[in-house]
C-alpha cells in the first residue's frame, strides 16, 4: 500500500514538473513582445527594452524557467507585474475560498448522485424516467447559466441569500453557508447529473452480476446485498467520473465566482487573464495543477480501498 502511494506521489510530482515547464514555455514564448504589450503600442523602443530588462524577459526562456523553478521550490512564485504583490500572498486567502466551494460541491453532488442513482436503478419505472430527465437537463444547461438565474430568483427577487461576497467559515458558519449555498447549488447540478447517470448505469450493471444472485441464494436480503456488495462494486466507476467532474468544477468555479463576486482563485485568474499578468497566471496554473493532482491521489486511494484488484496490483 505504501509503495502504491509513493508511486502515485512520484507520478504527481513528475506531472507537476511537466505542466509547469509547458505552461512557462507557452506563457513566456512571446518574451520579446511581452514588454511591448505591457507598455502599450505607443511606448518607445528604448522604454520597452528597459522594461524587458527589468523583468528579465531578455534572457532565453530556458534560463528564465530555471530561475522560476528554483525560486518556486523555495516557495517563491514571483511578483505580480501590476501591483508588485507576491504571487503566493495573492493566492493564500483565495485557495480556501475556491476549495470550500469545490469540495462542498463535490460532497453534495456525491451524496445526491448516489442517492438518486441507487433510487433510479432499484425502482425503475417512472422514478427512473424522472431521474433521467432531470439529469439530462442538469447535464445540458451550463452551470453559470443556472447560477445567473439562482442569483436573480433567490438573491435579488426573494432576498433569501447574499447575492455577492464571501464570509469565511472561521468568521461565521451561517454567514459562510449563506454566501456559498447558491454557488454550490449552481455548480452541483451538472456534476450531480453526470455522476447520477454513472451510478445508475454501474448499479444496474452490478445488480445483474451472477454473484448478486448467488449472494441472495445464500439468504441475504436484496437490501443488504445492494448496500454492501453492489454499491461497492459500482463505486469504482462512479469515483472515476467524480474525479473528472472535479476538474470540470474547478473550471466552473472560475465563472461562478465571478457571478457571486467571491474572492477566490477564479476571480484572480480572470483578473490576471485580462491584464496579461503572467507571473500570477503561472502561479495559478501551478496551484490548480497541485489541487488536481492531490485530489486524483485521494481518488486513487479511495479506488484502492474499494477495489482489491487495484490495491494488490
Amino acid at each position, binding site marked *: 500500500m505504501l509503495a502504491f502511494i509513493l508511486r502515485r506521489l512520484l507520478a504527481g510530482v513528475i506531472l507537476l514538473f511537466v505542466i509547469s515547464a509547458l505552461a512557462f514555455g507557452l506563457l513566456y514564448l512571446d518574451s520579446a513582445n511581452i514588454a511591448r504589450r505591457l507598455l502599450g503600442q505607443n511606448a518607445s523602443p528604448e522604454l520597452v527594452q528597459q522594461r524587458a530588462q527589468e523583468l528579465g524577459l531578455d534572457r532565453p526562456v530556458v534560463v528564465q524557467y530555471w530561475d522560476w523553478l528554483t525560486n518556486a521550490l523555495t516557495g517563491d512564485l514571483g511578483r505580480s507585474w501590476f501591483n508588485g504583490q507576491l504571487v503566493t500572498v495573492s493566492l493564500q486567502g483565495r485557495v480556501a475560498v475556491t476549495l470550500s466551494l469545490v469540495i462542498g460541491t463535490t460532497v453534495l453532488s456525491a451524496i445526491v448522485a448516489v442517492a438518486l442513482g441507487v433510487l433510479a436503478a432499484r425502482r425503475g419505472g417512472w422514478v427512473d424516467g424522472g431521474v433521467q430527465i432531470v439529469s439530462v437537463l442538469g447535464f445540458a444547461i451550463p452551470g453559470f447559466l443556472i447560477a445567473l438565474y439562482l442569483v436573480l430568483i433567490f438573491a435579488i427577487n426573494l432576498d433569501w441569500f447574499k447575492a455577492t461576497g464571501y464570509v469565511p467559515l472561521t468568521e461565521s458558519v451561517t454567514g459562510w453557508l449563506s454566501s456559498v449555498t447558491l454557488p454550490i447549488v449552481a455548480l452541483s447540478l451538472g456534476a450531480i447529473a453526470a455522476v447520477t447517470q454513472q451510478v445508475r448505469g454501474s448499479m444496474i450493471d452490478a445488480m445483474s452480476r451472477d454473484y448478486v444472485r448467488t449472494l441472495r*441464494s445464500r439468504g441475504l436480503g436484496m437490501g443488504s446485498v445492494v448496500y454492501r456488495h453492489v454499491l461497492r462494486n459500482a463505486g469504482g466507476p462512479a469515483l472515476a467520473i467524480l474525479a473528472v467532474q472535479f476538474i470540470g468544477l474547478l473550471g466552473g468555479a472560475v465563472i461562478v465566482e465571478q457571478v457571486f463576486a467571491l474572492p477566490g482563485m477564479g476571480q484572480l485568474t480572470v483578473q490576471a487573464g485580462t491584464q496579461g499578468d503572467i507571473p500570477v497566471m503561472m502561479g495559478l496554473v501551478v496551484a490548480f495543477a497541485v489541487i488536481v493532482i492531490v485530489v486524483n491521489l485521494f481518488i486513487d486511494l479511495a479506488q484502492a480501498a474499494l477495489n482489491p484488484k487495484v490495491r494488490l496490483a
Partner: protein
Amino acid sequence: MTAITVPPAVPTPHIRASIFRRLVRKPMGLLSLAYLAFVFVIAVIGPLIAPYDPNTASIDLVLAPPSPEHPLGGDSAGRDILSRLLWATSVTVAAAAVAIVAALVIGVIAGLIAGYFKGWFDSLASWVASLTMALPAVIVLIAARAVLGPSVWWAMLIFGIILSTAYYRLVYATVVGVRGELYVDAARVSGLSDARIIGRHILSVVRAPIIIQTAIVAGIAIAVQSGLEFLGLGDMSVPTWGSMLNDGFRNIYRAPILMLWPSLAIASTCIALTLLANAMRDVLERSVPVRRRRRRTAALAITEAEPAPNLDDIQPGTATETVVHNDDHTSANPRREVLLTIRDLRVGYQQQTGPDIEVVHGVSLDVLEGEIHGLIGESGSGKTQTAFAVLGLLPRGGRVTGGSIEYEGMQLADVGEHAYRGVRGKRIGYIPQEPMSNLDPSFTIGYQLVEPLRKNLGLSKKAAKESALALLDRVGIPSPERTFDAYPFEVSGGMAQRVLIAGAVSTDPDLIIADEPTTALDVTVQAEVLDLLRDLQRERRMAMLLVTHNFGVVADLCDRVTVMQEGLFVEQGPVRTILGSPAHPYTQSLLDALLDNGPARPPLAVTAEGGRP
C-alpha cells in the same frame, strides 16, 4: 489475384440510413434535429437578415422596450437586441464549429494512428491525452488569453485541441477493439492496404460514436465559449451569446430581461444537442440487442436441426404429454418423503411491448428426500429458468406465471421476498455454473462464507470463521486459512467452485439446486467436483436438483432424471430406464448424439469423462 473476397464491414450504409430514419421517428430525435437545423439556418442567414448593425449604438435605444422598429428592444449601450442576437448566433455557431473541426481532425487522426499502428506514437499520444486532464480547460483558455489577447477564434482553436482528447480516446478504444476482429485480419491477409482497411472497416465502425460525441462536444464548446465571453474575456466588438449575457448580468438590477434571449439561446441549444446525443445513443443501443437476439435464435435453430430428423413430429411450445416411467428398484424407496413438488410451473418474461414471453410451459416434477434428480436438456430449453423459479431468483422481468412450487409444505410460486426468508440459503442451497463470476471480486472468500453463516445461523464472528474454515477443508481446499483470506481472483476456477459448494452446504440445507456445477471446469477438475458433490450429498443426506446438459453427469450421479425441451418436460423416470430404454424421440436423439462420439458403449459405462452430448 486472390479469391478471398473482403467481408463487408459491420454497419453498412444501409444500416446507417435506417438509423437516421429511426432517429427521426423518435419525437426527441426529430424535435432536437429540427431545432438544431433552425439554429444552423439562423447562423447562416442571421447577418443577412439582421435589420441593424449589431454594434451601432443610439442613445434613444438604451434599455428601450420592444417596439415595432426594434422587436426585442435595445441593450444597455443602445444597440438593437434582435440584430445582435442574429449576429451572435452566427458567431457562436461558427466558433463552436472551429472547436469541433479542430478536435475532430486532431483526435480522429491521432486515435486512428495510435490505435492501428501502436508503437511509440501510441504511448506519446496517450500521455499527452492524459496531460490535458491535469488542468481545467477554462484555466488553460484564460492563460492563453493572457498571451494571445482576446480572440474567439484562437480560444476555440485551443479548446478544440483540448477537446480532441475526447475523440482520441473514443477512436483509439474502438480501433483497438476492431483491429483484433477476424474480418480485419481477413482484409489484411487479402492484401488490402492499411489506408483502405482504416477507411473501409474501421472508420465505418467509429462513425456512429463519433457523431454522438460531436453532439456532446458541440454543447460543451458552446457552454465554455459563452462562459468565457460572459466573463468579459472575449472580444467585445464581436457579438456572441456570452457577451450579450454579460451585458444582461451587469444590468441584473436594472434590466434582468436582457439575460432572457441569450440564456434561452444557450440553454435550448445545449439541451437540443444533449437530447440528440441521447436519442442517437438509444437508437444505436436498441439496434444491437435485436441483432444479437436474431443471431442467437439462428444458432439455436442449427443445433435443433442437427440432432435428428425424427424431431419433426414434436411441436415445440405445445403441451405434449410427458413420458413418465415408473420407479425401478434403484429409485423406488417408499420411506422417502417428497421434498419439492413442482406442478404445472410456468415462467414468463415481461416485454416492453406486447405480451409476456413464456419460457417454461407448465412442467411438473417431484424431488424426494435425499435423492439426486437430474434435469437435462440443451441450452435454452428452460432448465435453468425452472431452477431459478424454485429459488425465487428469476432475472429482472421474469416471474412465475402459473402453477405451484411446494417446498416442505410451503408455497413458493409467485410469492414475495418474505416467503423466502429462512428458506433460501438455509434450507435450499444453490451451486452456480460459472465459479468466477459468482464470487464478489471486492470481498475476500472468507467474508463471503462468513456473511451468510452469521445471518442465517446467527453465529458469532469467531464461530462463523471456524465453521467456514472447516467447510473449506471439507471441500478439499489445501490451505483453508490462505484461501479464506484470498480474493476470488486469486484462486483457480476449480478452487472457486469448491468455495461455492462450501457456501451452498454451509447451512446444512435439505435441498441443493446445482445449475450445471461442472460445465465451466476443466475435464479433470470436473470429475473431482462430481465426486465431492456425491460425497457431500450422501454425507449430509441432501436432496439435489441437478441441472445439466451432460448425460455423463446424469449417469454418474442421478437417481432420477427429467428431460426438458423447449420449456417442456418430455420424459421423466429412473436414470436406468431413461438411459437404457428412452421412449421419447428427443431423449433418443440426445443419447444418439452422445454415443456418436465414440464406439458404442452401454449407457451406464458413460461416465464423467464423457464429452458433451
